[in-house]
């Protein structure tokens, strides 16, 4: 029988937690936020010229943000250990995306080994008002993939996150594929245990 990745009760609890923290978070003007990110992307496009480099740079910047953001996340959310990767994905979707971007995200399309899934974003505040120039292979919101990768790296999970669908590129929904590559062994902890 097919096991469900995450019991709906736990997922609903995560959604409620996300909503609660979102309510308490200080807010900023949405247009100013959108314009700030937009001017950053456009500047990168002008400076780097090669669109692939821009995609990489956005991901790198996100990685740096994620590494810092995860501590804020853990402190504000009170989330401790996730028992499995399915729970990790659910927490990212229901708690983290909600409290930082105010959006609801669904987790779907698990593989058999439960090591890869898709995050579906129906609403993306970064992309408000944006229309990409034609024939530009840009993943405008690639910073989000980096944030996920950086944050999970700090809790010993090495992942790959990448867009497979993007509304700015003509798709009907935004889909980030999230793949667990390995659990990072903590070298220091092992040595400590040996002593």
């Amino acid at each position, binding site marked *: 029988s097919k096991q469900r990745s995450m019991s709906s009760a736990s997922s609903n609890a995560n959604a409620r937690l996300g909503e609660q923290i979102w309510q308490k978070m200080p807010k900023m003007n949405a247009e100013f936020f959108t*314009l700030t990110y937009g001017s950053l992307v*456009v500047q990168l496009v002008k400076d780097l010229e090669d669109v692939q480099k821009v995609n990489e740079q956005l991901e790198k910047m996100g990685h740096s943000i994620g590494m810092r953001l995860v501590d804020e996340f853990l402190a504000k959310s009170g989330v401790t250990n996730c028992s499995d990767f399915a729970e990790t994905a659910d927490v990212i979707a229901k708690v983290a995306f909600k409290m930082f971007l105010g959006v609801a995200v669904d987790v779907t399309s698990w593989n058999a080994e439960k090591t890869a899934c898709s995050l579906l974003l129906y609403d993306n505040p970064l992309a408000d*008002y944006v*229309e*990409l120039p034609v024939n530009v292979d840009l993943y405008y919101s690639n910073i989000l993939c980096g944030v996920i990768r950086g944050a999970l790296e700090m809790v010993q999970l090495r992942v790959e996150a990448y867009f497979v669908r993007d509304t700015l590129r003509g798709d009907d929904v935004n889909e980030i594929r999230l793949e667990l590559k390995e659990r990072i062994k903590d070298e220091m902890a092992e040595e400590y245990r040996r002593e």
Partner: protein
Amino acid sequence: GASRPSWMYGKFIENAQGVTAAVAALGKENQKLYFRLFDEYKSEEEYFESLVFVSIDVLDECKERKASQQDMYLGFLCPVDEYQVYGYMTNTMVKFLVIVADTNRLQEAELRDFFRNIHAAFVDYLMNPFVPIDGETIKSSKFDATVEKNVAALERPAAQKP
């Protein structure tokens, strides 16, 4: 205003379905940001462009009065042959024009709504970070769609036509 060659007088379009002939947007220096013709009026592009030029003179007069004027809606600018031109100017000197076939059907409230919506669409367009601010022509499917929707709103439902 400049005189026009005689063949440009009186371009009455037979069997035109709609009231709205054209919508235009002009920049600070009156450069053409947007110019769109509708339905059968598309056949007389040069003529309607000339109407836009004629309106620019009137708009420049409005600019002089701008300091004392609170309203961005300029209203009726000038009649030309069978057409009327209505205008709207923002505080950043961007102007919107609509050229309609001479008719008593359009009320001020409808035109105010029209221009307010076009202005809002223009603001949304400028929010796209890829759009250059230095007055290039507006290329946006979202903006086009909003203009179409608002032009359609100016038309009366067919049942009410005489």
